[in-house]
């Protein structure tokens, strides 16, 4: 019999019952909640007069709607100008209070983007099944966990039953061999993967990221990569547990301590694919060939190395793809065969659950240090992923570096990643963004998003257009 993959092991560990119809009841260890996808689930519970199964598995924090300027945040919920946003954040507080759910409220030091808060607090741990009503829940898989995004009906289902009804996915291994070049980051790796397999390449699969590049990658880098597994179509992305994982988890607030820690580690050590495990699909990339990436279109698969040129629809034989390229060029205001380096930008956004951890802040700060934002760039905002990231960054003086370079230093939240708060692009503006989606209108009506790494976003903010950060000298 072939060995098991990491996903097989995590799945087997959590099956409560296998049903005849091919579905299974899967136990959920941790449920993370934010304000946007939960109100209707709580309402559903109330209407059906149901109680949550296990309140102590849930942790909540508001992130999508919270304002990010200090002035607005100073007065907490009262400082949210938009009345509908305010109601949504208040509703989360009310629901959590009524049911006794642990919540990191708007001005709690531990508040932040759900997918940043989970790992950094130790609420998310190796070996867990984790869900959240948010597609980027795949992020937590970096810890060696099975972590998937769910819809609101499923949020209600998990609240009421502690289980999810699911069918096992297929196994895919994405292996990146070799070593990354200097200035090439985890964000570039995942964009290159999506460029290769496409936004539907991982549909129906759980992706395990393996190979030398991931073995050498920091935990924060792995979180960035797993975050975007969903952009490759996979509900779950994951990385095997190793010493990097254990060092990261150790001493986190909610991580087990003492004897429980030893007991946990003894189990977590098995959380890797067996050497004879069988994958349904294997994709291999050479890490040494990956260059800094920039997305040019309106889907994350429309991505190119920094020295690339925008495609010409005339060269595309497939009619649906051709129409897609034409539509993207029009929306993005780009010409066929235009060089990526010639795209001028209006705004910079450094943040989101993809790239708002301390290493991201450091990477961006290293590029802007001693330099000045281009005057043609209207605004460059840096939004840490959580209160704790912000605190750490400030302790290292990163905020001062950003401000001295003409970048704004903000309060934690999703911010311009999806523009549910006041941070957004104007019609037609180009943005160098460290977020994960370049969909039409995502960052504001008519806004044009280019997905890049924090270092590349910072570099674009300095140059006023995309530039290979590796050519900027000492970074």
């Amino acid at each position, binding site marked *: 019999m072939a060995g098991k993959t990491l996903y097989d092991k995590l799945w087997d560990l959590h099956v409560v019952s296998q049903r005849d*119809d091919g579905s299974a009841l899967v136990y959920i260890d941790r449920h993370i909640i934010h304000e946007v996808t939960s*109100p209707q689930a709580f309402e559903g519970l109330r209407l059906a007069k149901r109680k949550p199964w296990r309140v102590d598995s849930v942790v909540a924090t508001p992130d999508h709607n919270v304002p990010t300027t200090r002035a607005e945040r100073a007065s907490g919920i009262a400082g949210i100008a938009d009345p509908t946003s305010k*109601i*949504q954040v208040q509703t989360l507080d009310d629901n959590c209070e009524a049911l006794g759910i642990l919540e990191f409220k708007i001005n709690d030091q531990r508040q932040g983007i759900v997918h940043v808060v989970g790992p950094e607090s130790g609420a998310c741990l190796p070996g867990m099944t984790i869900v959240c009503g*948010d597609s980027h829940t795949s992020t937590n898989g970096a810890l060696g966990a099975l972590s998937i995004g769910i819809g609101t009906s499923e949020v209600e289902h998990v609240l009421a039953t502690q289980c999810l009804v699911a069918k096992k996915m297929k196994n895919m291994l994405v292996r990146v061999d070799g070593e990354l070049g200097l200035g090439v980051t985890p964000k570039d790796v995942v964009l290159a993967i999506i460029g290769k397999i496409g*936004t539907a390449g991982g549909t129906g699969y759980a992706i395990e990221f393996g190979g030398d590049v991931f073995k050498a990658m920091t935990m924060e880098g792995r979180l960035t990569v797993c975050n975007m597994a969903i952009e490759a179509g996979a509900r779950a992305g994951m990385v095997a547990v190793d010493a990097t994982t254990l060092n990261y988890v150790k001493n986190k607030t909610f991580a087990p301590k003492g004897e429980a820690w030893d007991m946990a580690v003894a189990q977590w050590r098995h959380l890797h694919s067996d050497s004879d495990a069988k994958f349904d699909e294997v994709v291999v990339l050479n890490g040494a060939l990956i260059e800094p990436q920039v997305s040019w279109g309106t889907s994350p698969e429309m991505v190119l190395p920094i020295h690339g040129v925008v495609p010409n629809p005339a060269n595309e034989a497939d009619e649906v793809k051709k129409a897609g390229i034409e539509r993207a060029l029009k929306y993005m205001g780009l010409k066929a065969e235009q060089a990526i380096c010639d795209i001028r930008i209006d705004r910079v956004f450094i943040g989101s659950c993809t790239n708002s951890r301390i290493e991201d802040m450091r990477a961006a700060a290293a590029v802007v240090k001693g330099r000045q934002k281009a005057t043609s760039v209207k605004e460059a905002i840096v939004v840490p992923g959580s209160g704790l990231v912000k605190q750490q960054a400030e302790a290292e003086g990163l905020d001062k570096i950003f401000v001295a370079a003409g970048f704004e230093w903000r309060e934690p939240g999703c911010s311009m990643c999806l523009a549910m708060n006041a941070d957004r692009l104007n019609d037609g503006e180009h943005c160098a963004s460290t977020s994960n989606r370049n969909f039409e209108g995502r960052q504001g009506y008519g806004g044009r998003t280019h997905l890049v790494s924090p270092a590349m976003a910072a570099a674009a903010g300095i140059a006023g257009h995309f530039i290979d950060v590796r050519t900027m000298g000492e970074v």
Partner: protein
Amino acid sequence: MRAFTQHTGLVGPIDRANVDTDLIIPKQFLKSIKRSGFGPNAFDELRYLDEGSPEKPNDGRPLNPQFPLNFERYQGASILLTRKNFGCGSSREHAPWALDEYGFRAIIAPSFADIFFNNCFKNGILPIVLPDDIVEQLFAEMYAQEGYRLTVDLERQVVVKPSGEALAFEVDEFRKHCLLNGFDEIGVTLRDADKITAYEQARKKTAPWLFNFGA
């Protein structure tokens, strides 16, 4: 949940691949704490010429005359015909809520994104996967024939064309079962409450750290 058994309706197109859920219902409408009210803003950025907002009444907003679902001939469409990877991106269930309220009961495409696919079933909408060439054919027939209608029969797992030709599709047994019966899935799961409790008890012994969160 509303059951789905059989449905006959007018077919309307979104003729593009990779339609994401941001496009189906833009973020500014997600601030609602209700499950309803999203229909008039389904495909907001494609459908109207101006920017929509939850505060703005939709009556009288300028419609985009280029957007097919605004064409006279597709008014009242209840079966959406579209391209690969429909519903990719955000997990927002507001997307199926919006489509449902718009009037769509079934969606036909060569492939769907996983989370969206799942969310449809929870809301009584049937997403149907048909092979690329068949979808292509349906597009051609729909464009050629005004008032093109299809019948979707979940029990038999077929889409029936006006010619009477039946196109078979796959659907998971458990999803079919729930949809046909309009089951409350939570109720179904809770029938296994004993098993869940037994699992929990066993896990408490082997992995106690999972059970004292926040303590």
